[in-house]
């Protein structure tokens, strides 16, 4: 307003904007991330082509892609993927069902939880791969030993989270149902189970990750077929390109499983999820 202040403004406006460097011209976000991803692959290609120059140490992306196509068309990659996926699904479903049942019972009987809780917590802290040799001794080298490891891991996680969910059920809800004449079973199915569901769901997510990791461990140590076996075999035969294909396939399988579980849980049981946090 006052003329004394206005002259200060123009010099700023007149100043010529400095040309921004190339990497700053891209808007931040997915577009720039894609550029960086492409850049990363180009660097990988350059490294393996001009610096390492040894395909059994660092196969180039082109070589890996070619090998992936060959393994897919030959049927080996889909077969190994299906083997690993089958093991995960069988073990996961069995373990989740058994663990949830145990957890519900444990949560309703505090005495049982006092007795079993600490041992389950201890057993949970054992690295799953350490149990693979034991499982093989008891259940043999076949599929049973792989299922056993997954059932055991997933089962413990679900038992602990379901029990926590039951324990956190607001007592007023149970009392309200009882006051309205609900019996023990009705309370368990219609009040306790829905209240515990957010905990069970987050246990299901954690359990899926563990099942995935356990199957890889079991296959690395000793198995017939599966992506973990494929990676380990490639290492013994120095076929690093095949190994990288296996590792990336595992990543894809893990991402698909994770997204799939997320989608199913949100679609089918969306109203139970947001309470979990």
């Amino acid at each position, binding site marked *: 307003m006052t003329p004394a202040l206005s002259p200060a403004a123009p010099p700023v406006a007149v100043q010529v904007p400095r040309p921004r460097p190339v990497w700053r011209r891209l808007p931040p976000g997915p577009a720039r991330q894609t550029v960086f991803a492409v850049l990363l692959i180009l660097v990988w290609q350059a490294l393996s082509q001009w610096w390492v120059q040894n395909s059994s140490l660092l196969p180039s992306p082109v070589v890996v892609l070619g090998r992936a196509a060959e393994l897919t068309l030959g049927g080996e990659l889909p077969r190994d993927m299906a083997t690993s996926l089958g093991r995960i699904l069988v073990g996961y479903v069995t373990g989740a069902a058994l663990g949830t049942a145990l957890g519900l019972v444990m949560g309703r009987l505090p005495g049982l939880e006092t007795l079993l809780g600490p041992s389950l917590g201890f057993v949970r802290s054992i690295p799953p*791969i350490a149990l693979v040799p034991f499982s093989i001794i008891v259940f043999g080298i076949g599929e049973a030993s792989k299922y056993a490891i997954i059932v055991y891991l997933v089962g413990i996680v679900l038992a602990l989270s379901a029990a926590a969910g039951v324990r956190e059920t607001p007592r007023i809800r149970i009392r309200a149902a009882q006051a309205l004449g609900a019996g023990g079973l009705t309370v368990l199915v219609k009040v306790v189970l829905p209240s515990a569901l957010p905990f069970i769901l987050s246990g299901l997510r954690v359990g899926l990750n563990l099942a995935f990791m356990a199957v890889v461990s079991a296959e690395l140590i000793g198995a017939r077929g599966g992506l973990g076996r494929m990676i380990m075999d490639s290492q013994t035969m120095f076929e690093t390109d095949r190994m990288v294909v296996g590792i990336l396939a595992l*990543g894809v399988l893990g991402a698909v499983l994770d997204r799939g579980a997320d989608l199913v849980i949100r679609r089918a049981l969306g109203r139970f999820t947001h309470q979990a946090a």
Partner: protein
Amino acid sequence: MPRVTGATGEGRGRHWLGAVGAVLLPLLAWELLSRTVLNGNLVPPPSIVAGTALGMLGTGELGLHIAISLRRIFVGFVLGSGLGIALGLGAASSSLVWDALRPLLAVCSTVPPIALIPLAMVWFGIDEPARLFLIIYLATVLMVPSTVSGVRAIAPIRLRAAESLGARRADVYVRVILPAALPFILNGLRISLGFCFMVVVAAEMIGASSGIGYLIVQSRYYALTSKMFVGILVPGAMGLGFDALFRWLVTVALPRFAVEKRTG
């Protein structure tokens, strides 16, 4: 009123009894089962396992394997966590760094670290560097996201308050951002330590000539199941111990930064 436990002497007494029962009863059940129903050669009773463990402690065999595994974990954990926190701070303050790291992190977080053991063996052989690489990699990959989310969780009003009071950029970092992100970083460190532990045992099982993981595989080859059980139970106890130690450190040494207090 009768259900209130812990406050009265009687309640505390019962709690203590429950804890003892929780340790003794499963052990007793295991002892009885493996002496009757199960094959004692495959599932040795806890008394024999304990005897084996004591014997191995006496000869120094167990102590040696534990010390070797611990040294592997700590060197890699310290280096990797430092790198991860530094990268995380960088990524949180510059969208360019974040966008550059994002694709790499996306790949690294979907590939299970155990699957990288064979690759590490191709690159570094079966000696120490392979294990070191794996742990540094794992700790770095795990620490970047938790550091970033710690920095991002800071209320902007705190940053603005510091800035309007004339704090320089370095001051803002040291006095506002780092303390506020610390609970997330500490929690990330605790989780990361657990994973490092798991991967070290895995790496020792697949290719090593010492350490707890090697002990398990070696006893399996010689069909020494009670020795194998020692190898299985020791990392469980160590993992539990570290977790408790970390929680204790966070709540006792750094009570301001305890995660439970802030988030729970």
